[in-house]
C-alpha cells in the first residue's frame, strides 16, 4: 500500500479542494461583510488627519512573491493620499525587483487621478537605493545625499513636491510597504532616531512581529495581510483587488479550519482503536 493511499484524504484531493476554494469564489461576485481592525483604522485616520500638501514618504519594499498582499494596500493608500492632496514621495530600499511594481502602481493610480495630480508637484518616484540601513541613516541626515535625482534623472532639490523636505523628520508620515526585514531598519535607524510618524503595510505572516511597536506607538497603525488590505480598501471607499482576493482567501481559511478539524477527528479515532 502506497503512502498516498494510507492517508485518510490523499494529498491531491486537498490540493484540488484548495484550487477550487481559490478559483470559484474569485470568479463569483458576492459581497463580504465588514471586518473591523483597530490597527488598520488607526493608520487610515492618521492619513486622513494630515493637512493638504503634507509630504508622505512611501517605501515600496516587496517583490512579486508578496505582490498579491501588498499591491492592494499600495493602491488604497495612494488613492487616499491623492484624494487628500498630499505630496507623495515614492522609493524602494528592498531590492531592485521592487521598482517595476512601484512604477506600475503609481502609473495606474496617477492615471485614475489624471488632471488632479501632476508628477513633480504632487508625487515623485525617486527610485531604488541599495544598503537599506545606510540609506535610512543617510536620509535621516540629508535626503538628497541618498536620492539626488528622481527616476527621470531630474534634480530633486527645487521640485515643488520636495518643498520643505531636507531630512526624514520633515515628512508628515512614512509608510513602509514591506515583505521582509525592512520595517526593522526603518524602525531602528529611522523612526526611533528621528521620531517621525510611521505606518506599516506588511504580509500577514510578518504582522505578528510588529505588535510591540504598535503598543510603544512607534507605529501609528498597521495593515497586515490581505484581510487588513481589504479593510483599508473599504475605508478608502474604492473597490480594489483585495475585495476579490478576500473572497477566495476567506473560503480557503474555512477549508483549512475544516481540514484541521477532520484531521483531529481522524487522529483521535485512530488513537482510540
Amino acid at each position, binding site marked *: 500500500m502506497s503512502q498516498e493511499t494510507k492517508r485518510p484524504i490523499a494529498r491531491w484531493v*486537498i490540493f484540488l479542494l484548495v484550487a477550487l476554494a481559490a478559483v470559484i469564489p474569485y470568479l463569483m461576485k458576492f459581497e463580504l461583510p465588514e*471586518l473591523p481592525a483597530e490597527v488598520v483604522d488607526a493608520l487610515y485616520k492618521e492619513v486622513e488627519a494630515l493637512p493638504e500638501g503634507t509630504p508622505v514618504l512611501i517605501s515600496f519594499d516587496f517583490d512579486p512573491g508578496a*505582490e498579491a498582499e501588498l499591491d492592494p494596500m499600495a493602491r488604497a493608500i495612494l488613492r487616499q493620499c491623492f484624494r487628500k492632496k498630499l505630496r507623495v514621495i515614492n522609493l524602494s530600499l528592498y531590492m531592485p525587483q521592487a521598482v517595476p511594481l512601484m512604477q506600475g502602481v503609481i502609473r495606474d493610480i496617477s492615471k485614475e487621478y489624471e488632471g488632479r495630480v501632476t508628477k513633480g508637484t504632487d508625487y515623485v*518616484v525617486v527610485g531604488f537605493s541599495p544598503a537599506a540601513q545606510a540609506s535610512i541613516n543617510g536620509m535621516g541626515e540629508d535626503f538628497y545625499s*541618498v536620492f539626488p535625482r528622481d527616476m527621470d534623472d531630474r534634480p530633486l532639490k527645487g521640485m515643488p513636491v520636495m518643498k520643505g523636505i531636507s531630512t526624514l523628520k520633515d515628512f508628515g508620515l512614512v509608510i513602509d510597504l514591506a515583505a521582509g526585514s525592512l520595517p526593522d531598519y526603518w524602525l531602528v535607524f529611522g523612526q526611533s532616531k528621528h521620531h517621525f510618524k510611521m505606518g506599516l503595510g506588511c504580509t500577514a505572516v510578518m504582522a505578528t512581529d510588529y*505588535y510591540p511597536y504598535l503598543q510603544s506607538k512607534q507605529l501609528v497603525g498597521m495593515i497586515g495581510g490581505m484581510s487588513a488590505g481589504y479593510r483599508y480598501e473599504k475605508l478608502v471607499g474604492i473597490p480594489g483587488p483585495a475585495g476579490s482576493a478576500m473572497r477566495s482567501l476567506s473560503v480557503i481559511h474555512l477549508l483549512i479550519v475544516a481540514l484541521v478539524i*477532520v484531521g483531529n477527528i481522524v487522529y483521535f479515532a485512530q488513537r482510540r482503536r
Partner: protein
Amino acid sequence: MRFFKRTIPLALTFVIGVVFFLQPFSPHPFSGKLLELFSNWVAIVASVSLVLGLGSLFLVHLGKIRKQGAGWGYSAVLLSCFFWISVAGFWPMKVDDPQHEGQTIWKIGGDGVIESHYFWIYWNVYRPCGATMFSILGFFIASAAFRAFRARSLEATLLLVSAVIIMVGNIPWGFEWGGGLAGSLKGVNWLPDFTKAQTLGPDIRDWVLTVPNMAAKRAILFGVVLGGIATSLRIIFGIERSYLGGGRD
C-alpha cells in the same frame, strides 16, 4: 603580513566601532556628517557587492557546465536567462520625455516606461514566476495543516486553538458569527467580558495578537537585541574574529 591581515583590520574595527557607538549621543553637526559619509560608503560597497555576487554566480555555474556535473542543464538555463535579462536591461527603451509633454525619447532606465524588453521580461516571466512560487505555498500549508495540526499535547492544542482563532478572526464571516455567538454568551456570568463583546471574532483575535503574541514577541526581541549587543562588543574588542576569515597570516 600579520600586521596587514590582522592588526590593521582589528584596529579599524575597534576605532570605528567605538566612534559609531558614541555617534548617536553627539549633537555636533560633524557627528551627523560622519554618519552620512559612512552611510554613502556602505551604499557604494553594497552596490559593488552586487557586481561581485553576479560575478560569483556566473563563475560557479560556468564551472558546473564545463564539468557537466549533476544538474548542469539548470545552470545553462540560469546563464541564458542571466544574459537575456542583462542585455534587455541595457537595451534603450521608449519613455515619456519629462521635458516635453506628449513626446517620447529613447533611454536606458528611468520612469514612465512605454516599451522595454526588460519590462516585458519582468512583467511576463519574472513576476508570474515569483507569484506562482509564493502561491504554491498555500497548497502545502493546507496539506500540512491537515497532517500536522494535531492536539497531541497541551502546547500543540494551544497552538491549534490560536491558529483557528486567528484564521476565523481574519475572515469577514468570522466577525458576523462572532457577533451572533457573543449575543448568546451574554447571560453566562463566569465568562470573561471580552468573550461577550459584540465583535467577538476580531476581539478574541486581537486579544491573542496583542497579549500572548506580543509578550512572546517582546521577549524574543529583547533576547535578539541583547545577543546583538553582546556580539557587537565581542567584534569591537577583537574577541570575535571569524569575520576576518581563515587562511595563513
